[in-house]
């Protein structure tokens, strides 16, 4: 089964995934109208800023076993057995934040949502674009990502690609890895240099 794979080294921190995610979770699915909606749709992927301005698209890992699911007081968090996606039922969520206390990645937010009862604040997080996938679309964050920091692929394929990259990097005879675009490479080099000089 395909899933969203994050490649942190390619993220430029443009936050387009956040905007696309918010639109994908809006009622109208169009950016022009989504911004007029009430409640305002919010993203479930969160680009965090590193210590040197580097970006990272932080999203739910759909852990198994999932700490949030074990901590949920009302039984609102469940796993969709078909897609292995950890989901939150907005009707039974009691907004207690026990899941936020359990999530080791800090990806759960609390706000109103058009799918939740009106006026009710609920826990919200990535649902692997359940709604879009039912229509045959890929997750919105992947679709919009311009730097291939987010890809949608079989985990086995993604692992193989990485293994091959490592293999190529230590073998002179092998063809080179698919290069990272020049601008991005410069940015990454600058960040790496900063990190190298960084003393705890």
């Amino acid at each position, binding site marked *: 089964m395909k899933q969203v794979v994050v490649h942190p080294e390619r993220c430029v921190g443009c936050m387009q995934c956040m905007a696309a995610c918010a639109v994908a979770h809006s009622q109208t699915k169009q950016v022009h109208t989504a911004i007029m909606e009430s409640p305002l749709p919010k993203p479930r992927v969160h680009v965090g800023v590193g210590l040197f301005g580097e970006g*990272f698209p932080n999203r739910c890992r759909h852990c198994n076993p999932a700490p949030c699911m074990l901590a949920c*007081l009302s039984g609102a968090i469940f796993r969709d057995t078909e897609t292995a996606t950890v989901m939150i039922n907005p009707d039974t969520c009691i907004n*207690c*934040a026990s*899941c936020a*206390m*359990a999530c080791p990645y*800090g990806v759960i937010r609390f706000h109103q949502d058009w799918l939740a009862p009106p006026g009710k604040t609920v826990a919200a997080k990535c649902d692997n674009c359940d709604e879009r996938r039912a229509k045959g679309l890929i997750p919105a964050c992947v679709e919009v990502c311009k730097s291939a920091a987010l890809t949608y692929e079989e985990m086995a394929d993604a692992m193989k690609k990485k293994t091959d990259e490592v293999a190529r990097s230590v073998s002179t005879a092998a063809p080179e890895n698919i290069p990272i675009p020049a601008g991005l490479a410069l940015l990454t080099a600058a960040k790496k240099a900063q990190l190298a000089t960084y003393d*705890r």
Partner: protein
Amino acid sequence: MEYVILGNGIAGVCAAETVRQFDSEGSITMVADETFPPYSRPMISMVLAGQVASDKLPIRSTSFYEDLRINAVLGNRVAEIDVDQKRVITQNGTSLRFDKLLIATGADPRPINAEGLNLKNIFFMRTEAHVRNMLAAIPQTKRALVLGGGLVGFKAAYGLLQRGLDVTMLITSGYPLSMQVDETAGKLILDELRDHGLEVRVGISVEAFEGNGSITGAALSDGTHMPCDLVVVGKGVRPALSFVPQDKIDIDLGILVNEHMETSTTGIFAAGDVAESVDISRKTRWVNAIWPEAVTQGRIAGTNMAGRQVSYGGSLSRNVLRILNLDVMTMGLVNPPENSDYEVICARDPRHKMYRKLVFRINILIGAVLINAIEQGGIFMGLIQNEIPLNVPNSILADSSFNFKQLMM
């Protein structure tokens, strides 16, 4: 294999599920006082506040016992454990044999020392039945008195306010949640409560309750008298272990367990509010009577009972609650001893009512109090629980912009 589980709280329920997952053949018997289907205990305060209907409390299906082929002996407390004969005797005389026993009897509300405790309309808030009785009494009452500034006290006070009662909260210590937060956070919470119409009196306790049949007032430790017609006692809990044979099973405040949740007697396990394990941040034995630990301990105990050895890393105190407009999250050791080797970092943003206190042992986080901006709290929990040494300055965790990426150096 015959498994007997005492208690149908979340520790017992999780243990039963785990045992069944690994052993489809063995017989499982659950003995429990409460007859209500397995429910979410922390949610009872929301029923009191009218935010949740009581039919939303169950967190397992009504066919839970049948589905897992559990022999449920409900409405019955355990009276005695015969360790040598491997038998459990209940209060109505039923005798049950066991190969593996789990004591998950939880905790009972801590009683208080005051006269007149037998008067009507004095309640504890621990079970679904307590709240049901309270709701039945509320229409005839106007002035409520809540004893205790802990979590239960808070939730009771909030619920009663929502029901339109005048509520006075009496706190023995100087600020609310003194077991969970530090003084700064406690004062912030106190201000918030007072802003919302709750009368809070600190450093005071009740000497005696007065009334003729039903309660009509209370005599306080400062010599004054206070009229009230409903009282909720929220002075914490203590492990329910009166039936435990102390010559066979070692106890301290709770039942002592090793890393497999096993007691000093082989084949007898304990989990949840009744068990005393090692606290990760305090590095000492401690009873952390909280829901998430009961879940974990129940699962660990169940796995070990079914014959698969797994270890428990120790427990950690933690809590999160939303008080009116404040979100409060607290975990680990938050009030370290004075002049110790701990580093404490505090950050405050009064405009956003944000406060963050972090306690470190060199570069390992061991405790945190967060007021508002609690979304990243789980990351702190992970750091404390796994005792991860930071490779970044401790201070970055105090900034409101802190996020997971900053740990990925």
